């Protein structure tokens, strides 16, 4: 592989310095003189008709400036796929976090007290909390259009015929829980009127242009009247992809002319924010006697809760990846997205893939066991390789590192010691096991249009300002872009400055999601760099009279390859300015895509990321408690731009995977979330995070910027099935539901008679 000066090196992130000294301003850190505090009154019922809303007492409360309801919202329905979500509820409330009214007051205490004085009369409606009952359609409806938000069926080949000829068939029903993002910074922001008279919202988010569009549409404001800025955000993982405080803030400033601040409490955030879709997956999988997978029949139901959000796309990802990274000639997928009153589900790192990967990777393990095959061997016999045709009869053109990852896993010492580990018993009640799983997910937004622009400005002192709308949600995209830019523009890293995510100053670089921000922004940056280099060389020709083909850029200078004469970037800037050529360049990149197959939105993708994981677990058979002792992750990463950022992102995603597998249990009873704080909704602490080893599988994605792939999500996807397979290895018991809580595992161990210490 080609070597670069900056790319591929473990350079400490520029933005991390500010973070380490407490200087970074997050959305919650913005204040202004004379600002108001916003507080939302949220529904206490999962499902109810709103009979009346009386705000008179709240308005009289000292310090209160305004109280808003649905009457203040010109267009009170929004949503990316389907406009089903109200800014403030009007006819009904559909989950317990649903916003009903908004108070603006001089202090946070006054706002909170006043919100409690708003008198809302409800008529409770039957709670739709069971997806199976919801789809039957004779009970209560969450929305007029019925409870099935989307359904589709995709078939290739003939599963029935394949089942007739199979050596083994495994059929199971899996359930996966509602995971809560629990980013450490809850939703927050500040709004004000800027010097140009624009309503300016500085808030959390993952896409400034999309948030701006939703603000303008709901509040009937012209585009030029609104500006959205997204500073570095305290974690997102998909949970800040949907609108949270943005429209409320804009509304307060619009109506009062004053700055406004909101910063949700953890409890309010946990209740109201989006969650990972709960899934119900039935799978019937067949193989021949050599372990070749013949058919997979899948039924997926995703509970999207009160609103669709990004649910239709999440369903697509579940459909696309439910066959794992395997070539299976016969598939039949039935999939439904269902409304309930349980919560509001939308994007979460992995986007539908963690759910289905838990199912298919448990299935493959079960088949291996029936055939007496090694779990890695059976996977290797079925994985796709570059140039193969996938399950949707799509040619896999991008790089594929899964076979490599599995080969490396097979040789890993943890895997080699697998049987010894299982036989070792430090205590009569402890069982140990080692499990493996593979994973796949498309990156880029699939067959949906997706393009972005990046701008470069050459400053008069010869530095570069890169302008883009990517948001820094902790993933290090800003630092990675700086490294790439320094290489492309051939200058020192310290001469690169990044200006990110301000709709008044940076071009639209599409949304920061689907792990592809680096890929998209990086490619747009490449085009902009080419433009910029052309300009630099033009300046050189003007200055020296030498033809352009003689010149190239090198470490801050344009240099003639024949005469050796050189022109510094700062001199070039002066010439470009004088001659009116301009010191800015733009690059636009449209992500290549395919035509979606019928019945889908964005299947198939052109590029996929892959990973394998090995988990070592210890199970206490008397309590059902699982301890993950070690996790090895082998992600197919394309070229690694910054090894530190890369490993950190994979480890962080894997820790969330452990939470998903054994710990994070969002308890929802009849539409009421019982785990509303970090004291009851437990996310991995350092005690739950095991030793981790990340082994990057470096394949080269020819179309990526300098060969990089996205990797934001893949680390979470194989973890839950690897842990479940390790538990099976340790105890002989297969659990079909995540999270595998002590209660669930204990019950299964008892049923199987596996809870006697020996």
């Amino acid at each position: 592989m080609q070597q670069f000066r900056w790319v591929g090196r473990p350079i400490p992130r520029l933005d991390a310095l500010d973070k380490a000294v407490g200087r970074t301003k997050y959305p919650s850190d913005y204040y202004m003189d004379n600002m108001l505090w916003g507080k939302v009154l949220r529904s206490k019922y999962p499902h109810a008709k709103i009979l009346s809303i009386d705000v008179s007492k709240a308005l009289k409360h000292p310090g209160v400036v305004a109280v808003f309801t649905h009457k203040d919202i010109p267009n009170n329905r929004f949503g990316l796929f389907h406009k089903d979500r109200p800014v403030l509820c009007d006819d009904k409330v559909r989950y317990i976090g649903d916003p009903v009214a908004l108070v603006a007051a001089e202090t946070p205490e006054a706002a909170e007290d006043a919100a409690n004085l708003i008198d809302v009369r409800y008529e409770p409606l039957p709670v739709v909390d069971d997806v199976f009952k919801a789809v039957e359609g004779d009970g209560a409806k969450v929305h007029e259009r019925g409870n099935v938000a989307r359904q589709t069926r995709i078939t290739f080949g003939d599963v029935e015929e394949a089942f007739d000829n199979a050596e083994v068939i495994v059929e199971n029903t899996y359930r996966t829980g509602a995971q809560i993002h629990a980013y450490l910074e809850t939703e927050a922001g500040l709004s004000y009127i800027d010097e140009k008279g624009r309503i300016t919202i500085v808030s959390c988010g993952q896409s400034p242009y999309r948030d701006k569009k939703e603000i303008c549409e709901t509040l009937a404001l012209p585009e030029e009247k609104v500006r959205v800025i997204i500073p570095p955000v305290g974690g997102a993982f998909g949970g800040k992809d949907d609108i949270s405080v943005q429209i409320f803030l804009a509304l307060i400033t619009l109506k009062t002319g004053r700055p406004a601040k909101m910063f949700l409490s953890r409890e309010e955030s946990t209740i109201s924010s989006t969650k990972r879709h709960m899934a119900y997956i039935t799978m019937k999988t067949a193989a021949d006697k050599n372990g070749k997978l013949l058919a997979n029949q899948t039924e997926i139901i995703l509970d999207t809760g009160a609103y669709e959000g990004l649910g239709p796309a999440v369903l697509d990802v579940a459909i696309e990846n439910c066959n794992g990274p395997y070539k299976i000639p016969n598939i039949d997928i039935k999939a439904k997205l269902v409304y309930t009153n349980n919560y509001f589900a939308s994007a979460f790192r992995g986007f539908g893939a963690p759910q289905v990967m838990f199912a298919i990777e448990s299935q493959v393990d079960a088949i291996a066991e029936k055939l007496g095959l090694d779990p890695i061997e059976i996977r290797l016999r079925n994985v796709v390789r570059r140039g193969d045709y996938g399950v949707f009869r799509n040619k896999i053109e991008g790089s594929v590192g899964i076979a490599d990852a599995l080969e490396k896993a097979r040789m890993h010492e943890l895997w080699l010691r697998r049987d010894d580990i299982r036989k070792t018993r430090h205590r009569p009640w402890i069982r140990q096991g080692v499990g493996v799983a593979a994973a796949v997910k498309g990156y880029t937004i699939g067959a949906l249009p997706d393009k972005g622009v990046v701008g470069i400005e050459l400053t008069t002192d010869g530095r570069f300002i890169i302008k883009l709308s990517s948001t820094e949600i902790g993933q290090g995209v800003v630092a990675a872009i700086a490294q790439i830019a320094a290489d492309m523009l051939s200058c020192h890293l310290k001469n690169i400055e990044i200006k990110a995510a301000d709709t008044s100053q940076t071009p639209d670089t599409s949304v920061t999601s689907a792990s592809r921000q680096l890929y998209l922004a990086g490619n747009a940056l490449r085009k902009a760099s080419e433009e910029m280099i052309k300009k630099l060389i033009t300046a050189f020709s003007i200055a020296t009279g030498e033809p352009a083909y003689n010149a190239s850029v090198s470490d801050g200078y344009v240099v003639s390859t024949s005469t050796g004469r050189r022109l510094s970037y700062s001199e070039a800037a002066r010439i470009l300015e004088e001659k009116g050529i301009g010191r800015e360049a733009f690059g636009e990149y449209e992500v290549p895509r395919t035509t979606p197959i019928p019945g889908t939105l964005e299947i198939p993708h052109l590029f996929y990321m892959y990973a394998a994981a090995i988990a070592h677990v210890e199970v206490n058979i008397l309590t059902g408690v699982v301890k993950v002792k070690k996790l090895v992750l082998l992600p197919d990463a394309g070229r690694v731009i910054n090894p530190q950022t890369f490993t950190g992102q994979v480890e962080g995603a894997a820790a969330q995977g452990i939470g998903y597998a054994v710990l994070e249990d969002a308890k929802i009873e009849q539409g009421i979330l019982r785990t509303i704080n970090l004291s009851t909704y437990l996310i991995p602490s350092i005690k739950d995070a095991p030793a981790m080893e990340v082994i990057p599988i470096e394949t080269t994605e020819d179309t990526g910027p300098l060969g990089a792939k996205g990797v934001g999500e893949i680390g979470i996807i194989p973890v839950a099935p690897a842990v479940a397979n390790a538990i099976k290895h340790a105890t002989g018991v297969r659990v079909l539901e995540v999270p595998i809580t002590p209660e669930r595992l204990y019950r299964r161990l008892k049923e199987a008679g596996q809870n006697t210490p020996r």
Partner: protein
Amino acid sequence: MARKKQLLETAETYVSVSMKVNGVPCSAKIEPRTLLVHFLRDVLGLTGTHWGCDTGNCGACTVIMNGKSVKSCNIFAVQADGAEIITIEGLAKDGQLHPIQEAFWENHGLQCGFCTPGFIMQAYWLLQQNPNPTEEEVRRGISGNICRCTGYQNIVKAILTAAEKMKR
């Protein structure tokens, strides 16, 4: 830094507090229910101390009060009357990063960075108590802080590196 001061000072139920924060004497009139974390952030404008939960679980708000690490969301500002407080803003001296800050930066001990000030303050206290911690002791020492982004590996590495640096 005016924040909500004007309004606060006129209200009768409000009480005065004064304390020394990063060596600087500060005083204000506040609502008695104001938590120390909100006093530091909303009144003093020291936003490096973060607020991440309502139940004392996350540790994002960790500061040093009278030489001990405390979760500033678990303390009313009035309880800190007369106290000496150190926050993340008080660690770097004369533009020189504190070795712990340096170690977090260099070891990539952070991603979104929202938990970072809390971890650094906790590590600051931990290394004062025990300048030579084992990995196990570091893990135990920071088990009251939560990070959702990193998976903790690099945080542990950073603190161990910092301990080395501080010996030099």
